[in-house]
C-alpha cells in the first residue's frame, strides 16, 4: 500500500509540473459602450496591449519575396533572405511603414519576426502583433484569425515559359489539358481547382521556389501565382518565363489583409491606420511606386 501511495504522489507531482501557466491578466474589453471609440490610430494603439511594449512586432515570411519586399539583404539583419524587411521597402514593406507611422511607431520601433505561413494562424499566444505575407481574406479563415481591411486587391495570373504549349492561351478552356502548379496556402490553387478544373491533377508546392523550380524543370506547364509575384518570377527567377495572362475575378474581389490574433483589440487600430493612409493617398502612392508596372496583363477570358 505504501508503494501505491508513493506512486500516487509521483503522479501528483507530474501532474503539478504539467499545470498550465498562469493566464496573463487580460485587459477587460470595454465593449465600446462606456468609452467613446478612439478616432485616430495612434491613440488607439497607445491603449492596446502589444507583444512587446512600445514596439510594433510584425511577422512575415522569410525569404521576403519581391515585389512585396525590396532593397536586398543587409549585414545588420543577416537572417533575412532576399530582402531585409527592416528597410521598409517594397509594397508590403512600405505599407507596414506607413501603417506603423499612423499607429505612432517610428521606423526603429518596428520589429520583424519570421513567421512561416502555417504559424500565422496557429492557435495560442502569438509572438507578433500582426502578420503581413500576402494572406487573402476568406470567411472561413476569419473564424481563426482577425483580418484587417484590404491593403491590396489582387488578381491571379498564369506564368509559363517561352515555347510552352499554353503560351499565348487566351481562354480558360485552352488550359484544361495543362499540368498546372501553384504554391501552397495561396488562393492560386483554389483558382486552378475551382475555375480552371484541369484534367491533369495540379501540383501544389510548399513554397514559391518549389513551384518555380518545377516550371523550370518542365514538370508543370505553368504556375498560377498572384499578378505582382508573376512579374517578379518572370523578371528574376525564370529567364525564359512569360506571363500568359491574368485571370478574371470569379465571385468576390480577392484582397490581401493583415492577420491578427482572433478578437484582438488591436485590429481596430490597424484598420484606422489603413483608412488614414487610404484617405491621404499614401497608399496609392506606395502602390504607384512599387507595383505600378506590375498591375496589369492581358486577361484570360473565362
Amino acid at each position, binding site marked *: 500500500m505504501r508503494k501505491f501511495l508513493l506512486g500516487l504522489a509521483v503522479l501528483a507531482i507530474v501532474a503539478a509540473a504539467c*499545470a498550465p501557466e498562469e493566464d496573463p491578466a487580460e485587459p477587460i474589453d470595454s465593449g465600446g459602450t462606456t468609452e467613446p471609440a478612439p478616432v485616430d490610430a495612434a491613440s488607439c494603439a497607445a491603449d492596446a496591449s502589444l507583444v512587446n511594449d512600445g514596439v510594433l512586432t510584425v511577422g512575415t515570411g522569410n525569404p521576403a519575396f519581391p515585389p512585396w519586399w525590396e532593397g536586398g539583404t543587409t549585414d545588420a539583419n543577416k537572417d533575412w533572405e532576399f530582402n531585409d524587411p527592416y528597410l521598409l521597402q517594397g509594397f508590403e514593406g512600405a505599407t507596414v511603414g506607413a501603417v506603423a507611422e499612423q499607429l505612432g511607431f517610428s521606423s526603429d520601433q518596428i520589429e520583424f519576426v519570421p513567421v512561416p505561413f502555417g504559424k500565422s494562424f496557429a492557435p495560442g499566444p502569438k509572438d507578433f502583433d500582426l502578420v503581413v505575407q500576402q494572406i487573402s481574406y476568406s470567411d472561413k479563415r476569419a473564424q481563426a484569425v482577425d483580418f484587417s481591411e484590404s491593403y491590396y486587391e489582387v488578381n491571379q495570373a498564369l506564368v509559363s515559359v517561352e515555347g510552352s504549349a499554353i503560351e499565348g492561351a487566351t481562354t480558360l478552356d485552352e488550359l484544361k489539358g495543362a499540368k498546372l502548379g501553384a504554391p*501552397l496556402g495561396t488562393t492560386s490553387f483554389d483558382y486552378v481547382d475551382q475555375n480552371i478544373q484541369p484534367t491533369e491533377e495540379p*501540383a501544389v508546392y510548399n513554397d514559391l521556389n518549389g*513551384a518555380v523550380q518545377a516550371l*523550370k524543370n518542365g514538370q508543370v506547364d505553368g504556375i498560377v501565382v498572384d499578378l505582382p509575384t508573376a512579374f517578379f518570377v518572370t523578371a528574376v527567377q525564370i529567364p525564359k518565363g512569360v506571363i500568359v495572362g491574368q485571370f478574371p475575378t470569379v465571385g468576390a474581389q480577392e484582397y490581401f489583409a493583415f492577420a491578427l490574433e482572433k478578437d484582438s483589440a488591436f485590429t481596430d487600430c490597424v484598420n484606422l491606420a489603413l483608412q488614414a493612409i487610404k484617405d491621404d493617398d499614401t497608399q496609392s502612392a506606395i502602390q504607384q511606386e512599387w507595383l505600378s508596372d506590375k498591375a496589369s496583363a492581358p486577361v484570360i477570358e473565362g
Partner: protein
Amino acid sequence: MKVAGGVPGLGSSRGVPGVDPEQPLPPPGNRRSRILSVGEPGARSVWVAVASTLVFFGVAAVLIVRSPGWASIKATFFDREVFADSLPKIVGQFSTNVFIFLVAEAFVLIVALVLAVLRSLSGPVFAPLRLLAIGYTDLFRGIPTILVISLLGFGMPALQLQGFPKSEIFWAIVALVLVYSAYVAEVYRAGIESVHPSQTAAARSLGLSRLQSMRHVVLPQAVRRVIPPLLNDFIGLQKDSALVAFLGVIEGLQQANIISQATFDFTPYVSLAIVYLVITIPQTRFVDWLVERDRRQRQGGTQL
C-alpha cells in the same frame, strides 16, 4: 525503429544477446497480463494498476480540458465540420501514398537483399563489392530522407536529360527505395549473421559453392527470422511516403496542407493522422503477433 545490428525479439541458435542462457526466460503470457501486472502476481496488483491508470489519465484529461487554450485547440484541431469535409478528400488522395509505398516496398525487398548478400560475402575477392555495399548503406542511412527526395525530385528533372522521367512520383519512389534499401539491407544482414556458421560450413562441406550455400541454406533461414523487423521498416516507409508532398504531389499530407491553409484550421492533420493509424496499427499488431509466435515456437517444449 531502425534496426541496425541486431534483431530484437529474435534469437538464434547462438542465443539471444544480453540474455544469460542459464537463466530461464520469464513465462511468455499474453500482452494484456504483462501490461497490467507489474511483477506482483495476484488480484491486488491488478487493482493497483487499474487505479493508477485511472488516476493518471483522469488527471491528464482534466488538465488538458481545463487549460486556458483548450477552447481554441478544440476549435482549430477538432472541428467536426472540417473533419467531415476533409476526411473523404484526404482518403482519396491517400491512394497516391498507397501506390508509392507498395511499389517502393517491392523494390526495397530486392535491392536490400542484393546489398545484404554483397556485404555478407566472405572471401578476399569480394572486397570491392563489400566496400560498395558498405559505402551505399553509410551514405543513404546518413542523409535525411527528405533531402534525398528533394534532391532527386527537383534535381534529376533539372538535368533535362533525354529519356529521364520528369514525374515527381517516379523520383520520390526512387528516393524512398534508395533510403529504405539501406535500412532493410542491415536488417537482412543481421538475419544472415544470425544463421550459425556451422550451417555454412556444413553446406560447403557438401560441395556447395559460397553463393549456393548462401542461396539455399543461409538466406531461407535468415529471411524468415527478419520478417518482423522488416515490417517495422515498411511501416516507417509508409509514413515517409508523406514526404513526397515536398515535390508538389497532392497526396494525403499535401491535401491536408491545402485544406488546412485554406481554412486556417488544423483538423485536416488530425484526419490524416487517423488514416495513418488505421493502416499502421493493424500492421504493428501483426508484427507483435509474429514476434510472439516466433518466441513460442523457439521455446516450445523447453520452457513450458
